[in-house]
């Protein structure tokens, strides 16, 4: 028999660690340097594109939307500058997603989590929200002090908090507002929104996006990257030993001690590192990690610790880039006294680039050569064939003509099928016998009922293929489709 254990003696946490950890609020300190400047620049660019793109105009002619980028859901069209896509061309988005995914892999194999550190909306908006917070409540120490203080709040502190959240909400609201502008003519919608005449769905989406921006950038922040986002897990599996990552260069020696002690030890010829344990890299980190622990999932590789460390290294007169874009291979090479090598061109990056070029090339080619005139044919199912009084056989088809161009077309329909077969479109009096002509309005589809009649003497014994040719009589463009002609 097992010995009975006193439940109070069991300490599961000690053996397995807690399964849940409460969020520790991060107070990133302000920092300046190369990477901070790059981040400001990219933030301005990304937000600029997001907020102002709906207002960019693009002339497509009278009656067509003049917005450069527009997702027109009621009319099922997508406009992107000179490109107009119909719902059946949604595969271009598949291609775009493939290119985007491989571009992400390529970025990752060159410079680690470039996406996470600089371009991801979560990073960009969180960075913006931190900037607002810092501006109003002060830098790291002040914010920590204010949050810890147990004194009853004074008017000054209350107004600070109110102001911060108001500005956050304003940014979040603007974010939601810009979102809906991609789905309707932006200037019109803005006018409607401010006069409360916009459709309810627009307000609902603004509210949803306002809430998600406010919560994700104002409160959840690094939690999103660490707990919600799948990319940190995926990228860890995709990376290799040559990829450059934000790395603490431990080849710069141990141990970590104060400037004074380090100088003493150095004078004595004893081993000492360049790191002086100032914790500046931890203080500026937006995800609250210590980069000196090595590559880790919490690190979004924004490069701010590089800026922080460089500032300190410059101050104490040691070489900069104790933290930098590097990899273990080079650290080991330097430790062995060899020159570092940076291998950006390697099988992996070549493969990704080729894939991007191939998929992108296919997309561009199909886009450039796609037909602006199209035809779909559907054979009547009931009845499949009709015998007429003179013994001839007639099949009926539903023909859908698509005109993707910005102008009306006149098309002639003729067929390759049973010998001497007649073609008639219901509601169309043919000027040319057996070659009915119809008008397809610009950027539209027309559905026709088309009848093919084979004379008794040419009756095919069984089903034979019939090909429908639709010819633009002005431009000579031809679209074709195949179906069958069936005898009863």
């Amino acid at each position, binding site marked *: 028999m097992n010995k*009975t254990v006193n439940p109070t003696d069991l300490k599961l946490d000690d053996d397995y660690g807690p399964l849940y950890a409460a969020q520790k609020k991060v107070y990133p300190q302000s920092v300046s340097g190369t990477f901070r400047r790059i981040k400001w620049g990219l933030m301005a660019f990304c937000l600029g594109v997001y907020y102002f793109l709906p207002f960019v105009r693009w002339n497509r002619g009278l009656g067509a939307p003049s917005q450069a980028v527009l997702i027109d859901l009621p009319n099922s069209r997508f406009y992107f500058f000179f490109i107009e896509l119909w719902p059946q061309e949604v595969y271009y988005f598949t291609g775009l997603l493939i290119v985007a995914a491989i571009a992400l892999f390529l970025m990752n194999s060159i410079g680690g989590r470039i996406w996470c550190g600089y371009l991801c909306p979560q990073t960009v908006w969180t960075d913006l929200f931190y900037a607002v917070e810092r501006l109003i409540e002060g830098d790291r120490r002040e914010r920590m002090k204010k949050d810890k203080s147990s004194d009853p709040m004074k008017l000054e502190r209350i107004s600070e908090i109110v102001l911060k959240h108001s500005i956050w909400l304003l940014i979040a609201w603007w974010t939601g507002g810009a979102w809906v502008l991609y789905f309707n003519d932006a200037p019109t919608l803005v006018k409607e929104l401010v006069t409360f005449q916009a459709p309810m769905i627009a307000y609902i989406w603004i509210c949803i996006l306002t809430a998600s921006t406010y919560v994700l950038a104002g409160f959840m922040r690094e939690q999103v990257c660490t707990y919600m986002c799948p990319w940190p897990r995926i990228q860890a599996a995709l990376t290799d030993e040559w990829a450059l990552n934000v790395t603490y260069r431990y080849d710069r020696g141990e141990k970590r001690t104060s400037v004074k002690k380090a100088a003493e030890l150095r004078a004595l010829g004893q081993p000492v590192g360049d790191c002086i344990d100032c914790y500046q890299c931890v203080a500026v980190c937006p995800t609250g990690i210590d980069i000196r622990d090595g590559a880790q999932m919490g690190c979004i590789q924004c490069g701010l610790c590089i800026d922080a460390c460089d500032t300190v290294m410059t101050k104490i007169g040691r070489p900069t880039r104790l933290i930098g874009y590097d990899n273990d291979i080079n650290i080991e090479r330097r430790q062995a006294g060899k020159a570092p090598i940076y291998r950006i061109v390697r099988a992996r990056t070549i493969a990704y680039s080729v894939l991007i070029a191939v998929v992108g090339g296919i997309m561009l080619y199909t886009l450039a050569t796609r037909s602006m005139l199209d035809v779909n044919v559907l054979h009547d199912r*009931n*009845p499949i064939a*009709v015998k*007429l*009084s003179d013994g001839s056989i*007639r099949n009926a088809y539903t023909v859908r003509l698509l005109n993707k161009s910005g102008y009306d077309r006149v098309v002639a329909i003729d067929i390759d099928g049973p010998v001497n077969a007649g073609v008639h479109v219901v509601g169309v009096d043919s000027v040319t016998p057996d070659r009915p002509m119809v008008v397809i309005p610009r950027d539209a589809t027309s559905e026709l*009922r088309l*009848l093919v009649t084979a004379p008794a003497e040419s009756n095919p014994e069984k089903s034979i293929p019939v090909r429908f040719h639709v010819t633009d009589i002005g431009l000579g463009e031809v679209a074709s489709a195949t179906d069958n002609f069936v005898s009863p």
Partner: protein
Amino acid sequence: MTDHSEVDTVTGKSTTGHEWDGIKELNTPLPRWWVMTFYLTILWSIGYWIVYPAWPLISGYTSGVLGYSTRASLAVELANLEKIRGEKMAMLAAAPLADIEKDPALLALARAKGRTVFGDNCAPCHGSGASGSKGFPNLNDDDWLWGGTLDQIMQTIQYGVRSGHSKTHEGQMLAFGKDGVLKADEIVTVANYVRSLAGLPTRQGYDAAKGTKIFADNCVSCHSEDGKGNPEMGAPNLTDKIWLYGSDEAALIETISNGRSGVMPAWEGRLDPATIKAMAVYVHSLGGGK
């Protein structure tokens, strides 16, 4: 009942006192929030009984203070639908019959409306694809008893055939055998004559001259001298390849002996004028319309 509960030494929790083959159940009560939610749902259901229809009575049910009824809300939705459709149907009603097929939007509307109404009202006899069956004409072909122009089709739909309506199509195939007009051998002869009109083979020993005479004496008043029929009387063309009741000798003998008088109901009054118009356009656009 005595309390058998005891404290479990491993977990420190009390047991419920239930024991199965030495296995005891720990007393793990439901969380308070769960129990509270449960009570709340009970309270909610009482409110629901008061507000909404809930309890069946002997003849009826408790209707609830809101007076809600699914039937009433359906009526409202249907009325809204009619309002939305009304505008388009008014356009259809106003357009001259001949112009509907020329306008792609009106044609699409008429065909969509026509197909639905056809399925509800006409399909039992004519079939869902309007291809008919014995005694019920195929509306896809170009053989029309009462004429295949738009106006004629509309007239037939409106007033029916032998429907009893004052404006209905009249005229019927007489029962030449049953009424004793023709003798059995004469019927066989004229049946073969009719087959010869359509280019079908005749029976051996058939007397063509006799057949011609019987036909001329009895049939030409409706089917005309050349046998091509007359849409005014609903008399079918006997020279073509389409036979409503069959073209073999036996079927023809049956037709001549007993007559035919198929009935189609009049739809005026059952369907509104715009719908009848849509029906006419739909049937005409199936392909056979003239």
